[in-house]
């Protein structure tokens, strides 16, 4: 039995809530759109980025995907806008913009 988290939402009846709100199955945080919480948004300047990849491991929400030695666009569905990536970037390639 894997919990279909999409079926447990703010309209679920009490009979449909799992005992103790337990969630069965891994990786369900993907379904939880924490990007909604963001009040400021990271913006990448591609000209300045040297793909040193230091931003990816410091992101607490794993929102900077990496493929073939290059970082890809921010996952803004889950980025909470904490700004750690911008703070650590030694090349000034990431800036934080007010709002979503």
């Amino acid at each position: 039995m894997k919990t279909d988290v999409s079926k447990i939402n703010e309209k679920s009846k009490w009979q449909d809530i799992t005992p103790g709100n337990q969630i069965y199955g891994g990786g369900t945080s993907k379904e939880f759109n924490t990007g909604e919480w963001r009040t400021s948004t990271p913006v990448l300047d591609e000209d300045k980025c040297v793909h040193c990849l230091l931003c990816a491991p410091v992101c607490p929400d794993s929102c900077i995907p990496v493929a073939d030695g290059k970082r890809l666009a921010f996952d803004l569905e889950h980025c909470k806008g904490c700004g750690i990536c911008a703070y650590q970037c030694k090349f000034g390639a990431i800036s934080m913009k007010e709002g979503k």
Partner: protein
Amino acid sequence: MAIRERLSGNEAVAYAIKQINPDVMPAFPITPSTEIPQFVSTFISNGEIDTEFIPVESEHSAMSAAIGAEAAGCRTLTATSSCGMALMWEELYVAASNRLPLALALVNRALSGPININCDHSDSMGARDTGWIQIYAENNQEAYDNFIQAFRISEHKDVRLPIMICQDGFITSHAVENIELIEDDRVKAFVGSYEPEQYLLNPDMPMAVGPYATSPYYMETKMAQNTAMKNAKQVILDIAKEFEEISGRKYSFFEEYRLDDADYAIVIIGSAAGTTKEAIDELRAEGKKVGLLKIRVFRPFPGDEIAKALSHTKAVAILDRSEGFRAGGGPLSAEVKEHLYDIGASTKAVSYIYGLGGRDYRVDDAKKVFAELYDMIENGIEIPQYQYIGLRK
């Protein structure tokens, strides 16, 4: 053949634990429950059981470790008393709301202050709204029998709630009585092994326990939890019936003692029921129609059943062994009265407080209570609706 022994209440519960051989026991010592983890540790070091004993630094840690072990998939228990339970406060709610079926051997003792190590029910009554099942014992036999039934009730798939097996500090925990134990193999067959459907150490299905629930989820979660508590009623009766088959001893939500035709009754929890029975026998010999309703299961509260069992009486005295500080009686009296009102009973109900901090409750005290009920009804004498038994004044 049942085993005839003589054991203290703490020894009896420890013996039940030995027979069950649970997976994990985190515990911290506190009078008068200290002996329970002490005896269990001895069984472990003698190689009689293979329970993992975790010596923790506080009761807060004991209940936290119990929650972790239970969530991991282990049959878990702990033991405590009084302020030890108070220090578990936050975790008691966590265990219940996360629907973790663990057991707590509670040896009832007064809460500080003033600091006091003797029996009253202020510890478990303070925890009455934490979502734990609560079952109380009159004597050592009942403490043992209740503990044997504990995991079956708690782990039942319709319930999955933690359970507190309570006995009176010193009065039953340290007094040695004759007891009839059930053979090991029959206990093991009755209790069975713990097979949780979901648990943290299951590599085939990762899971999350205790996620954050915002306001749109919280009330639905509480209703589901309360429904589990409601379900516990039938499960408690079913397990009692099965237990009767292996022990010959009958259990229900409460015991009625000479209550059938009684005009006056006492409602009480725990060891003081024995004293009350003695008073009833003496008064019955004089032709007085008096009886007792001894509560065994306090959570879930069998209010409707209690009210119906009392409704034929003219008056009942509800005796609480804890102060509720609502300036009008203890918790048991409030709940019994609520249900008498609900069914429209004409029974008059009076609240008494007795035995706080280990104060003796004697046969004469019970007789005096019955005399007051009689005076109130037959002679129209006004009596206080809330008073302390045996108070110097």
